[in-house]
C-alpha cells in the first residue's frame, strides 16, 4: 500500500494545475535515496546524475500507470535499478579493449575522484563489491548498505526471497575472501 505522503504527491500530480508541484515534491522526497542506490551501481557521479535524471523523467512519463499496490519508493527504485543495469550494459558494449573495461574505470574512480571520501578499508570494500556480477552487486547493496528487507528487495527485483538470501550469502562470502586476499 502507498504511504500517506505518496497519496498526497499522487493527488497533486493528478491535477494539471498542481502537477509540477507534485513532481517536485516527489523528487524532493526520494531523490537522495534513489541517487544513493544508483551511485553505488554506477560509481561515477556524472553517470549517476544521468541515470537519476532519466529515472525521474521516465517516472513522470509513466506515473499514471502506477497502481499504488506498492510504495512509490519501491516503484521508483525498480525504474532506477533497470536504468542502472541498462546503463552498465551499454557501457560494456562501448569498450572493445580488454585493458580498459568499464569496471576498471570505476575502480580507478574510487581512488582518484574528489567525490569519494572513504578511507582505504571502505574503498577496498567497494572494489571487492565491484568484482561481483551486477545483479549480485545490486542485491548486496540493497541489503547491506540500505538495510532493505528481503520482501521489499523481492518486490523490486521480482525474485523470490529464497533466491535473494542465497545470492546475498554468496556475495558476502566472495567479498570476505577478496578482502582476506589483499
Amino acid at each position, binding site marked *: 500500500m502507498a504511504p500517506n505522503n505518496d497519496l498526497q504527491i499522487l493527488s497533486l500530480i493528478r491535477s494539471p494545475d498542481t502537477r509540477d508541484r507534485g513532481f517536485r515534491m516527489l523528487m524532493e522526497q526520494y531523490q537522495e535515496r534513489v541517487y*544513493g542506490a544508483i551511485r553505488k551501481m554506477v560509481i561515477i557521479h556524472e553517470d*549517476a546524475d544521468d541515470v537519476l535524471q532519466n529515472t525521474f523523467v521516465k517516472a513522470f512519463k509513466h506515473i499514471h500507470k502506477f497502481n499504488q499496490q506498492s510504495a512509490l519508493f519501491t516503484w521508483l527504485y525498480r525504474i532506477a535499478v533497470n536504468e542502472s543495469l541498462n546503463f552498465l550494459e551499454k557501457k560494456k558494449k562501448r569498450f572493445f579493449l580488454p585493458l580498459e573495461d568499464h569496471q576498471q574505470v570505476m575502480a580507478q574512480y574510487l581512488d582518484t575522484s574528489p567525490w569519494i571520501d572513504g578511507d582505504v578499508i571502505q574503498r577496498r570494500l567497494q572494489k571487492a563489491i565491484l568484482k561481483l556480477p551486477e545483479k549480485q552487486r545490486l542485491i548486496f547493496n540493497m541489503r547491506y548498505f540500505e538495510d532493505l528487507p528481503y520482501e521489499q528487495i523481492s518486490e*523490486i527485483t521480482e525474485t523470490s526471497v529464497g533466491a535473494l538470501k542465497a545470492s546475498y550469502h554468496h556475495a558476502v562470502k566472495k567479498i570476505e575472501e577478496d578482502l582476506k586476499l589483499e
Partner: protein
Amino acid sequence: MNQSQKHNIFKVPEGYFDELPTKVLKKRKNKTRQVWLARVAAAAVLIIGLTFFVGDFGGQSPDYYGQIEEDMELWISAGYWNEEEMLLLADYPNEILDFIIYEAWAYDEWGDDEMMFDAEIW
C-alpha cells in the same frame, strides 16, 4: 565486514540536490515540446493536404495531393520551413493548436510507444 564500512563514501557537488528538481522538470518540458512540435508538423501536413484536396485544386488526381504532402514533409525535414510556419498556412491554425495542446497536456503526454524500460532486466 564491520559497521564502519557501511559509511557512505559517495559525495555529491554542493547544492546538487537543490538544483536537481528544476533541472529534471526542464528536461521533461523539453521532451514534451519536442513531441508537441512533431504533432504540430503532422497536423499541419494533414490540414494543408486536406485544404488542397477540397479547395482550389479539387480537380487534381490523388497522386498529386500525395505528392504535396510528401513535399511538405520534405520542407520541414530539410529545415526550409518549420512546423510553426506550416501551421500558419492552415485555414484554422487556432483549432489545430487547441487540439494539440489538449493532447500534449493529457496524462499520456508522450504516448505509449516508448517502453518504460529499454530492456526489462528482471
